């Protein structure tokens, strides 16, 4: 128990830290954990089907599962028998004590008669029942034999318990290992649209936290469930065997414990939910005020923020006190029940022993049984929680595993080693949602080596178009041909290995600069890496880094600037030597000199390659062989710069507003100091 709680909470630490760094990644309040029942009571939508499927994961290990069950069963049986034998040992001692008090050599009948005539009828019964030999002390041979039996029982039971744990542990780990592998494989088969329509944080938590949770449920719930249930049955049975009267008394504690666990448990779950909510609310506030600290200060909001903090902190204090107090009561309350039945059994047992209806050993055995009884009961209660949370996690994971996959591949054609880069769209139609056509009946052709600039306002579908070339999405109609071959007849890998891609968000993985460049072609030599770096202006700044190409790039950047990251992604595409290029020009605020480097690098990359560029730079657009003007997901115009300007259509308007600062070309006044209109990129044109 201690182990899993710990790791949970630690995942929480990393989760919270991750959030603050990349604010879309994680909801920290969800990843947080605390030691006792802090996780939100997440409920499974359909408990039983999901639970069934969860345990179905164990199916390949069926034989071993039964072995585990068998081992647990035997171990529990032995553990349950042991106190009874201990009780017999106790009897041997007790009888020896009584016996030694009696005159040696006197026949038992006589002693019993004597006792009865003294008015100690109960004692007489006791003597008679226990078949005490007057005058004889403790029978150490018998005592030793019983003790050895007990030890033997316990040793075997412990060994079996260990063995089942050992087997189960390896088994569950194997199952979880496979589950993790399945999930990863699934991620590779999911279409990109799956990732587009969901929050990254949500997917992340399904593949990490939820799997951890499943592991925990399988590991603990299974063996403990079997063990607890069997122990309860076994102990109950033994109690009845020893003395059904006492058993009935002891069983009174069962509903009592159940009621206490139920009443307090439900109450404390509610309080934990409240604590949870308040923790989230406070942590949210802390995150917010720390992240926006400069603003809070400059706008003079310190006091309001502090007041809000105090308010939420106080609420959390109250909620968590309630939760901890009520949940803390469960243990003493359960103890009370257990002590209560202990007292009842001590009294009732004492009375029965005194009257000879029960041996002292049985009474002590009984006391031990009643003590061991409450433990599995409360364990079961705790397990219900864990199981519920585990099944809820399983459900979320299964959802991911069941998600629709990319259309399976059935490649009927292959490409030559290197294509010419002749791309043709033939009546291409694409929509994300059935009723929302995005690209309709689009046709155009790109000759090898040509540059296609795609322009249009944000959200026009520019990215979608290039994604179609990559076959990240499947078409709803029409064909895309590469060197005359329908790309759907190719394997995705075959197609994509022809294409190099540089995206706006300069994704690099955690590793050295060299590794990141080599990502474009895994078998590239160090010289080739340097060559690519040289061609794409990466070499210059890498040489200035203390570790050069071995500089490690961490996930949050830090070591290198945004512009430099961009350059590395260009080098990565360069080293791949693709015949087709897809470039997304960055608009982010890279300083101008780095920006210039990026432009040069991109230009170097474009040379002699068919390129699709989501263009923001005028120079790129004007140089392009074809400009596709997109609006609301449609291509409204296509042609080169001059022809489109002449048409005075959408491109003309876009060009004028986007690139000329709202001024029309002909009537542009001379810029003066007082004029609010400022320099546009074209001014440079004039000066140059």
């Amino acid at each position, binding site marked *: 128990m201690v182990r899993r709680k710990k790791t949970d909470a630690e995942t929480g630490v990393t989760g919270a830290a991750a959030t603050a760094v990349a604010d879309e990644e994680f909801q920290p309040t969800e990843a947080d954990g605390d030691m006792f029942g802090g996780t939100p009571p997440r409920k499974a939508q359909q408990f039983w089907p999901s639970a069934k499927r969860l345990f179905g994961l164990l199916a390949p290990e069926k034989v071993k599962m039964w072995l585990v069950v068998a081992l647990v069963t035997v171990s529990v049986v032995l553990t349950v028998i042991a106190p009874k034998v201990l009780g017999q040992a106790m009897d041997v001692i007790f009888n020896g004590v009584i016996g030694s008090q009696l005159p040696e050599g006197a026949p038992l009948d006589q002693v019993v008669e004597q006792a009865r005539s003294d008015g100690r009828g109960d004692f007489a019964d006791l003597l008679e029942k226990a078949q005490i030999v007057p005058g004889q002390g*403790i029978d150490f041979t018998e005592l030793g034999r019983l003790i050895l039996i007990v030890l033997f029982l316990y040793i075997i039971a412990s060994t079996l318990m260990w063995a089942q744990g050992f087997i189960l542990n390896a088994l569950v780990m194997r199952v979880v290992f496979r589950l993790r592998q399945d999930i990863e494989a699934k991620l590779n088969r999911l279409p990109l649209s799956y990732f587009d329509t969901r929050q990254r944080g949500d997917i992340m938590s399904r593949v990490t936290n939820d799997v951890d949770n499943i592991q925990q449920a399988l590991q603990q719930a299974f063996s403990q469930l079997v063990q607890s249930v069997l122990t309860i049955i076994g102990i109950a049975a033994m109690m009845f065997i020893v003395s059904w009267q006492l058993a009935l008394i002891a069983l009174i504690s069962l509903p009592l414990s159940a009621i206490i666990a139920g009443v307090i448990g439900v109450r404390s779950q509610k309080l934990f939910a409240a604590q949870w909510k308040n923790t989230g609310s406070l942590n949210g506030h802390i995150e917010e005020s720390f992240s926006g600290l400069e603003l809070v200060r400059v706008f003079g909001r310190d006091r309001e923020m502090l007041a809000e903090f105090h308010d939420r902190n106080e609420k959390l204090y109250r909620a968590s006190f309630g939760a901890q107090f009520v949940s803390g009561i469960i243990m003493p309350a359960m103890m009370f029940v257990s002590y209560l039945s202990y007292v009842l059994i001590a009294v009732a047992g004492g009375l029965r022993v005194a009257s000879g209806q029960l041996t002292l050993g049985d009474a002590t055995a009984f006391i031990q049984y009643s003590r061991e009884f409450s433990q599995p009961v409360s364990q079961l209660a705790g397990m219900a929680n864990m199981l519920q949370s585990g099944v809820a996690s399983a459900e979320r994971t299964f959802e991911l595993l069941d998600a629709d996959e990319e259309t399976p591949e059935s490649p009927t054609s292959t490409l030559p080693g290197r294509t010419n880069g002749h791309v043709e769209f033939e009546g291409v139609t694409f929509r994300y949602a059935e009723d929302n056509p995005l690209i309709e009946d689009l046709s155009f052709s790109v000759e090898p080596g040509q540059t296609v600039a795609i322009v249009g306002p944000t959200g026009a579908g520019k990215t979608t178009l290039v994604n179609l070339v990559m076959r990240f999405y499947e078409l709803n109609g029409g064909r895309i041909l590469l060197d005359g071959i329908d790309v759907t007849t190719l394997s995705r890998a075959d197609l994509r290995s022809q294409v190099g891609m540089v995206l706006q968000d300069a994704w690099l993985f955690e590793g050295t600069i060299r590794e990141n460049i080599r990502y474009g072609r895994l078998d590239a030599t160090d010289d080739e890496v340097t060559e690519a770096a040289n061609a794409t202006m990466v070499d210059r700044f890498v040489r200035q880094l203390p570790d050069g190409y071995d500089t490690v790039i961490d996930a949050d950047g830090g070591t290198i600037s945004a512009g430099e990251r961009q350059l590395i992604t260009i080098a990565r595409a360069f080293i791949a030597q693709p015949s087709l290029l897809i470039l997304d020009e960055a608009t982010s605020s890279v300083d101008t000199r780095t920006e210039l480097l990026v432009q040069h690098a991109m230009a170097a990359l474009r040379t002699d390659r068919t390129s699709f560029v989501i263009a923001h730079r005028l120079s790129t657009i004007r140089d392009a062989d074809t400009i596709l003007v997109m609006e609301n997901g449609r291509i409204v115009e296509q042609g080169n710069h001059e022809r489109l300007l002449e048409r005075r259509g959408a491109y003309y308007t876009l060009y004028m507003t986007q690139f000329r*600062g709202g001024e029309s070309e002909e009537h542009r006044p001379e810029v003066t100091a007082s004029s*609010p209109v400022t320099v546009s990129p074209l001014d440079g044109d004039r000066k140059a």
Partner: protein
Amino acid sequence: MALLSISLRYAKPYTRFVAAVFVFQLLSTIAALYLPSLNAEIIDRGVARGDTDFIWATGMTMLTVCVVQVVTAVGGVYFGARTAMAVGRDLRRDVYRKVDELSALEIGGFGTATLITRGTNDVQQVQMLVLMTLNFMVSAPIMCVGGIIMALREDVGLSWLVWVSVPVLFIIVSVLVGILLPLFRLMQDRIDGINGVLREQITGIRVIRAFVREPYESERYRTANERLTRVSVRVGNVFVLMFPVIMMVLHLATAAVLWFGGQRVEAGEMQVGSLTAFLQYLLQILTAVMMGVFMVMMIPRAVVCAERIQQVLGTETALTAPRGDARTPTVGRVEFRDVTFGYPGAERPVLENLSFTAEPGKTTAIVGSTGAGKSTLVTLIPRLMDPQSGSITIDDVPVSQLSREQIASVVGLVPQKPYLFSGTVASNLRFGRDDATDPELWEALGVAQGADFVNAKPEGLDTPISQGGTNVSGGQRQRLCIARALVAKPRVYLFDDSFSALDVATDARLRASLGEATGGATVIIVAQRVSTIREADQILVLDARRIVARGTHDELLESSDTYREIVESQLSVEGVA
């Protein structure tokens, strides 16, 4: 050490509660310890002599003891929970206040992410440890010592069993815990490792697919998965050993008590009841030892957390408190005199001997390449940190003499990274001035070119904004940030590269209307685009820590090579074919 000192310091105000916990735990433990002794009497004086009245009477006593036990235990839990949660609350409060005091420099030294973790998760860990300590660690030693005393009272002759079994159990459990703790850490590393690979796979999915690197990534993942599984199996294997081994020790002890106790009973040195009582005491002692050791497992982690918290609490801010009698500036003339600023430990300062004046009613622009110290310069004006030397004044009053309220009333900031707070558009716009009217908000939105998109939202000004402003686009966020500063109507406007997410046309329109809106105020703009600053009354060119040139656009084109370089780089990027 930090853990102990923090716990003691923060528990101090609740000394009485802690004392109550001790008293209650003591009583409840005594009650729990008394029960086996009463049971022994039932056996020895009741059962063995057939005295049923005695059995009944003692039974009633036991019942009373039970009630006392549960009541005191609940009392202990009550005060334990109150103390621990109060300690957590106070600790959080002090961390929050401390962070509020620190300068931007000191905060940057920690990093916002870790400060958040320290203020939330770390405090929670310490709080849980305090709770566990009060609930269990207090009672465990009492139970242990009390159990030993009671056991000795029953029979001194068997006491050697205590002296043997307690250390044996202690050593076994300690060894197992000692093996587990480093394994836990290792496992956490491996979990972080596999999660890291997955995170990269998800964030970089397009690149991975574009370069057909799925097999490569899968291989990386598989390795991480195998490494994690190996450690998990090892941890599990130690874990499954724990329970059976502990049970073995307990059962061996039981057997030994019966065997050796039996001999003492036979010799008349001990009574049967005492034997059962002794047995129960021994089990209670061993349980307490076990509990204590398990609790110790929590400590290493809480220690780390406490140290991290202590680092924050122990940081003395370099920002000296202002005297508080300075007059509030009304004009907004900002002057830097010989300002030098550097990060502690850095070889070279970020800014060196900077002097300039930003006049009210005029626009001062600052250009320079990344890392030239432009944002640092802006941060110094609202005194988010102090320079090492030199002075920064607003209307000749040093900013270090101004209270936070005064600075807030004079300076308005539009940060480089546009950040909004959870709430609504209106609540964000009113961030700097609570009493702004709706028309004023709309006016500011109009200037900031944000009126259209806010208008397009069905809820208008009441459109909800999520934390950080993630539910609006980057450009919209930036425009709202600008409007927020405008609503506050400060005397000094600081725009820290605030137009980068806007397209050129919007940028132009915004700056056109901005001039009027900022009126006679001082405007300081940091920018990348030459077009953004071309109209400025004064342009400061920052390069390698210093102002290398100043003047208007035209003047600088003539006089400054650096400026020309910057301009030309942009022209060739944006204009030259």
